[in-house]
């Protein structure tokens, strides 16, 4: 019996393939966007875990130099000769025009078992591994990526961190031009009878990284993505809801007939549930495939973002995880269930003998409208309260959620109000009918319009944020990259020769020197700068105490970046512990975009005495702009420097902007997809309505309004509704942008940007929204204008 019922229910989809496509498309898109984002997050987290586990970082302590530089070989040997089990690692990045690669050089002879260095294949030539030119072990994905041109032989091996090569320390030393270990791994079990390691060396003992700084830094980024995925999923469900609503509405008579013919209600409900489950499984399957494709397409951008922004290495490829697919399917079933619940309940309650007249399936009374308005006000209230309490990424997203929900609920109320005003101003019976009819249709259309509102608001918000960011960032780059040339030298000697060479050729040579350290127990960098107008005049300070630069150059104060200042709540005058026994007051805070970590700047003299081991290999060169190209050429020739070692300002800016563009590429892509989904939601709703509205349209036609005019009126009406929706979306989007800039970004990236508005973008978005609405209205309108008069006449000749 249920089988017969299911097959007769399915016959509906065979007869209405477009509806079926809508349902599948909605579900598949919702699943795809949500699961795609999940896949990206999962892949990135796996990469972090792998990176954290690489060489046992998550379980083994390390020894690092106090100044953040390399560990002198003599210190390493002294520890070994004292009997301590420590193992050297030389790590760094090689980069050329062709690509980049992180090199991790280990000493397999001394590496503790817990470091878990991956094995060489059975036929790997050990002599080749240990002797020049050496071998590089990397994953297949890394090997297929863009790599530097000249490399030793590559051997594919599992378990190597993404975008990195594992090799013998000797090979790493040659490739990186670095003799001394970057750090030492400490074996967990040390031989009997030795004093504690901390007493035996002046090197700094760093505890294992249990959670991983990278994971913590990138958490906010992933939360960001998740929020977008959720938004897309929600918008997708609007389509599903519309498509299911349509399918149920059109089959009301069939349900009743089947029951009259002897199908119990319970069997009907089981059949419907089976039908929906099957639909969700098929659509979910399509969605998972789509989601995988979306994720795979976005993954390189995400990887570039994470690398550019956080220095986190994430594989550019995507591996398929059945667990991910299963959870995506679960979400799809839940979503389809939620979307179908209302229609199912209504079907369950539908009396067998109710007059079988077609009616809008979401006919809302004035009372319902009032309720919705109150709910919207409540959500706005919650948003204001959360905004007032402030703080925290989650609070930021909660604020956004409340704001968007409130706006969505307020939309029908606002539209009804607006249509009421238009109706009063309308001239002529047709216009009066049109506005009255529009108001009546609102409940049916409102879900789709809400989807449009959400998509538009998100679009306004995100593009405002990205635009503000771009403007600020570009201006900041101009200030920050004031020097005409930037030169990298291979070692200290070359640096000294360079400085001598430039003595009378450049206006100033500013060493770029830094030491990696920890500030407030998080990784941070301290820079030393020489007293020069470049800094005093151009360095972008957000806040500063009077005489800030003098104090910094005198070694009496420190400048901190915005990220550190925000994280630690520092302002001018607060004290920062820079090194043991060195606490300096904050003289000012500077903006530092594109870097999530803490940073501080001290005067060069103080820097030299605090970090005597640090070397200046990079230099900023001030020279008359017109002389810069000639000087760059001279430097390349004189020092035999590769092109990549001498860069002009424009090159660096271009690179920085690339990093920036990558950062928001994913956000932009999701944004466009969401808008597309909203347009589909509109189309589905209109298709639903067009068949249901015949009884309303037919009498008007009979009274002498041409089909073409009716069809055009349908299009105009939707354009009007969409424009009104856009008007409401605009302020919502601006508040969204403000929240993103002032709350979410501060939490996610550690910097706050001044908000700027881009009305030209709004106009483009309005046109885009109207285009989407116009396209959505076109198909039903075309149908109406070509509808056989007989179909319209049927309205009079038969009730369904």
């Amino acid at each position, binding site marked *: *019996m249920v089988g*017969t*019922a299911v097959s*007769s229910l399915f*016959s*509906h989809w*065979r*007869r*209405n393939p477009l509806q079926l496509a809508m349902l599948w498309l909605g579900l598949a898109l919702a699943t795809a966007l949500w699961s795609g984002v999940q896949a990206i997050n999962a892949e990135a987290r796996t990469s972090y875990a792998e990176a954290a586990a690489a060489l046992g970082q998550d379980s083994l302590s390390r020894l690092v130099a106090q100044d953040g530089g390399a560990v002198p070989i003599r210190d390493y040997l002294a520890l070994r000769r004292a009997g301590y089990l420590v193992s050297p690692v030389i790590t760094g990045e090689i980069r050329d025009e062709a690509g980049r690669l992180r090199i991790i050089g280990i000493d397999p002879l001394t590496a503790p078992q817990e470091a878990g260095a991956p094995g060489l294949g059975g036929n790997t030539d050990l002599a080749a591994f240990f002797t020049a030119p050496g071998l590089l072990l990397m994953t297949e994905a890394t090997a297929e990526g863009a790599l530097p041109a000249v490399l030793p032989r590559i051997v594919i091996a599992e378990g190597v961190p993404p975008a990195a090569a594992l090799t013998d320390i000797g090979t790493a030393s040659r490739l990186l031009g670095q003799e001394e270990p970057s750090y030492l791994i400490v074996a967990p079990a040390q031989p009997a009878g030795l004093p504690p390691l901390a007493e035996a060396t002046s090197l700094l003992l760093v505890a294992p990284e249990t959670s991983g700084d990278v994971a913590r830094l990138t958490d906010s980024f992933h939360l960001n993505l998740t929020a977008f995925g959720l938004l897309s999923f929600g918008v997708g469900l609007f389509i599903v809801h519309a498509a299911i609503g349509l399918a149920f509405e059109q*089959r009301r*008579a*069939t349900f*009743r*007939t*089947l*029951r*009259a*013919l*002897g*199908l*119990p*209600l*319970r*069997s009907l409900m089981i059949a419907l549930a089976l039908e929906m489950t099957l639909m969700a499984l098929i659509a979910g399957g399509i969605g998972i495939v789509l989601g995988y494709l979306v994720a795979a397409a976005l993954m390189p951008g995400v990887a570039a973002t994470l690398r550019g922004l956080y220095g986190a290495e994430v594989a550019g490829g995507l591996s398929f995880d059945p667990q991910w697919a299963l959870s995506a399917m679960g979400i799809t079933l839940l979503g389809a269930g939620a979307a179908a619940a209302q229609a199912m309940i209504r079907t369950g309650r539908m009396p*067998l*003998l109710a007059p*079988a007249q077609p009616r809008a399936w979401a006919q809302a009374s004035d009372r319902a409208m009032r309720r919705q308005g109150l709910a919207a006000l409540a959500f706005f209230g919650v948003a204001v309260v959360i905004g007032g309490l402030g703080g925290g990424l989650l609070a930021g997203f909660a604020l956004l959620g409340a704001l968007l929900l409130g706006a969505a609920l307020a939309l029908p109320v606002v539209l009804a109000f607006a249509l009421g005003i238009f109706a009063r101003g309308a001239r002529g019976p047709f216009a009066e009918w049109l506005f009255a009819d529009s108001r009546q249709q609102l409940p049916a259309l409102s879900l789709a319009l809400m989807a449009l509102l959400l998509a538009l608001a998100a679009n306004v918000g995100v593009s405002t944020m990205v635009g503000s960011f771009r403007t600020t960032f570009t201006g900041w780059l101009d200030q920050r990259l004031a020097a005409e040339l930037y030169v990298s030298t291979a070692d200290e000697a070359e640096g000294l020769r360079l400085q001598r060479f430039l003595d009378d050729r450049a206006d100033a040579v500013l060493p770029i020197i830094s030491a990696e350290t920890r500030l407030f127990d998080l990784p941070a960098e301290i820079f030393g700068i020489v007293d020069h107008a470049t800094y005093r005049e151009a360095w972008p300070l957000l806040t500063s105490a009077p005489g800030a630069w003098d104090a910094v150059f005198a070694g009496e104060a420190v400048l901190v970046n915005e990220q550190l200042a925000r994280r630690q709540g520092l302002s001018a005058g607060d004290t920062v512990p820079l090194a043991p026994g060195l606490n300096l007051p904050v003289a000012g805070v500077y903006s530092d975009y594109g870097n999530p970590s803490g940073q501080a700047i001290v005067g060069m003299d103080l820097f030299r005495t605090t970090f005597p081991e640090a070397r200046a290999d990079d230099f900023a060169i001030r020279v008359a702009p017109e002389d810069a190209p000639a000087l760059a050429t001279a430097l390349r020739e004189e020092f035999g420097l590769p092109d990549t070692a001498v860069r002009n300002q424009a090159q660096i800016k271009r690179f920085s902007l690339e990093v920036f563009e990558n950062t928001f590429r994913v956000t932009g892509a999701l944004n466009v997809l969401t808008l597309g989904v909203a347009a589909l939601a509109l189309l589905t709703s209109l298709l639903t309505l067009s068949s249901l509205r015949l009884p309303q349209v037919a009498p008007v036609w009979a009274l002498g309004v041409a089909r073409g005019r009716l069809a055009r009126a349908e299009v105009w009406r939707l354009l009007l509704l969409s424009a009104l929706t856009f008007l409401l979306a605009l302020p919502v989007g601006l508040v969204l942008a403000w929240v993103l800039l002032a709350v979410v970004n501060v939490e996610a990236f550690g910097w706050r940007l001044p908000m700027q508005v881009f009305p030209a973008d709004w106009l483009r978005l309005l046109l885009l929204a109207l285009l989407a609405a116009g396209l959505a209205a076109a198909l039903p309108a075309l149908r109406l204008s070509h509808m056989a008069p007989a179909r319209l006449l049927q309205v009079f000749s*038969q*009730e*369904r």
Partner: protein
Amino acid sequence: MPSMTAPVLDLSGVTKRYPGAEGPLPVLSSVSLCLAAGETLALTGESGSGKSTLLHLAGGLDAPDEGRVTLMGHDLAALNDAGRAKVRGRHAGLIFQQFNLVPSLTVAANVAIQARLAGRHDPALDSRLIDRLGLSDLTARYPEQLSGGQQQRVAIARALAARPDVILADEPTGNLDEATGDAVLDLLLDLVTETGAGLLMVTHSERLAARLSRRLSLSRGRLEAS
């Protein structure tokens, strides 16, 4: 074939009220009637006299407030929705004024649907009925491609294909022109006679009512002999 004497349908003291603005309005008051196998009974009355309500109660589409409805020995009041649906599907064939075909199914599938739901589908009977009702060339069509008379013939075939013991017809020719309506009624009466099922037909047409073996009239919810 059921015995000529055993009633296929028995209504006794049936009362039905619908909620109204000033308390419940009685639609049917203490109506009793009995239909024997092979008997054809016309139920006439003005609009709002309660004809359709009586037919719905007879088919178990609705439950009476008082009284009993017995369909082929099953007390419908004692059954739940599922039980009533089962008895209806097994023993009653319903024919509506608006035909109520499933729009997404072909003529052939529509004819078979009730029999299949009742688990007593007989393809041979289907084709005999299709042939007899002159639908042979239309089996692959969908309802919207049929005329009103054709649609009602499909509905009749659907009702009979389930081999019901009683046919409940609500203005079966109400949406058809006179000539078509007469032809459809001729077919229906012939087939009812052939199968030996009982027929309870609601109509407002005296002319049509006269063609049935017995006739009752409803006025303001009460039966009047006529």
